[in-house]
């Protein structure tokens, strides 16, 4: 598939590359392929390569002197056929306790969708979600793949504080709050897993292109895993993805 992509200046130190404005895994994969090629060829010229649903923003260290020249160079990288080893992507299994103790909005969703709470849990934890990118907060994963039956509007009045680890649904998306934060999504559970930890060399274990599966756990298991995490003895279960 040949994707139609466009290049726009984003100030004089960044270039925005855009694909068709749809959310699709094909586009994500094309973005990641391009990102990887740029990372391989232009490492000393940029500070960040920021992925969005249908975009890649290249943040340069210095102002570029000639936008069109830079674009032509990027185009040649895009069509180049170099074989570089892609970064490995993983499927991460994230334990989630969907107990009403944590899932403050489970009952409201259940009442309005006519699904029982166990059906909601089943629908939410049976899907494999794709990490499109990370934004909003450090370690906040934008996940694709929520079952249509679980689409649920954001709260009209956001909560002033949503707990770190809260698993929530906002419109057509689901996600995990990596830090305590104000937030308007509907909370259905909580994970003891850290999605952002500055003490780690790699503060966020996941990256764009990875997959996430939520695994339903009991309250007892939640506290047990939480303890293992504070003792540094917990490892998130992961599987290498082939592509």
């Amino acid at each position, binding site marked *: 598939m040949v994707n139609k992509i466009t290049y726009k200046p984003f100030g004089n130190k960044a270039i925005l590359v855009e694909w068709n404005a749809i959310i699709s895994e094909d586009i994500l994969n094309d973005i990641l392929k391009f990102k990887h090629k740029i990372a391989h060829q232009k490492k000393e010229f940029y*500070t960040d390569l920021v992925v969005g649903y249908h975009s890649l923003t290249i943040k340069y260290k210095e102002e570029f002197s000639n936008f069109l020249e830079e674009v032509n160079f990027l185009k040649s990288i895009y069509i180049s056929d170099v074989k570089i080893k892609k970064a490995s992507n993983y499927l991460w299994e994230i334990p989630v306790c969907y107990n009403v103790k944590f899932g403050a909005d489970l009952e409201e969703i259940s009442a309005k969708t006519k699904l029982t709470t166990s059906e909601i849990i089943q629908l939410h934890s049976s899907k494999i979600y794709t990490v499109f990118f990370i934004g909003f907060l450090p370690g906040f994963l934008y996940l694709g793949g929520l079952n249509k039956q679980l689409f649920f509007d954001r709260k009209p009045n956001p909560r002033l504080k949503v707990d770190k680890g809260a698993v929530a649904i906002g419109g057509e998306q689901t996600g995990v709050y990596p830090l*305590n934060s104000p937030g308007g999504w509907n909370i259905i559970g909580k994970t003891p897993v850290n999605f952002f930890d500055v003490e780690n060399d790699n503060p966020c274990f996941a990256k764009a292109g990875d997959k996430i599966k939520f695994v339903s756990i009991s309250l007892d298991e939640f506290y047990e895993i939480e303890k293992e995490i504070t003792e540094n003895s917990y490892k998130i279960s992961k599987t290498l993805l082939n592509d």
Partner: protein
Amino acid sequence: MIKVLKAGFYASIQDKGRQGFASIGVPVSGVMDEYSANLANSILNNSLEFAVLEITFGGTQLQFLTDTFICISGGDFSPKINQKSILINARISVSKNDVLSFGKINFGVRCYLAVKEGFQSKKILQSRSFYQNITDDFIIKKNEILPVKKIKAQLKSTNTSVGILKSYFKTEEIKCFKGPEYDLLNDDQKKQLTNLLFTISNDNNRMGYRLNETIKNNLPSILTSAVLPGTVQLTPSGKIIVLMKDCQVTGGYPRVLQLTENSIGILSQKTTHNSLKFTLISI
């Protein structure tokens, strides 16, 4: 070492910020007014990468627990050492137990306190810039000890200030490039954006500045995509937000303008009720 006697309104240690962590959602942060922070570091012959203390509106009181040299640039909040006025934009020799305080606000919103060799607080993700959830604190606190190096007084204070352009603090002109979604605006909207004299609302901080005036907006939200410090967003209600150094890495509002780096600094010296005008420049 420096002891914080009074924290003041909002003061934080900042350097050039965190580059290279946007793909895990970490904001850039760093000094809001690079021009002034660079000036303070330059006058002390520091590297421009060294961390400084960004002090908003004064109110802060600091006691030096060691000899060193300092320089204050940016906003003029009538700085004093032991109640005696000192020059801004000048090298000042301070001794152990000296107390730095501030008084009347003459101009500007943020001043930069540079110390010889820079503040030595812990680097996290390659930067000393304070940011909530990344560094331990996001502002300095009363009785906190800020680490700095002891510098033996081989030099005296300078008697003259380095001259700065007053226009930097007075101009209402904010220079911008067209943003990625600028071309989606109709002619009326484009005109309003560059002809209106905007005023700054009381919702202005290191994350962003919200402006009071509205522009009739019919643009839909965009698919979440990168935003940068200096990105001007047009919200569904027609309000304008100018993103600043602590902004998120992604956003979903149309990005209609992008400030030049110098204009981010100019804007950061403005506050509630101040006015500004966007001027387009080309790449």
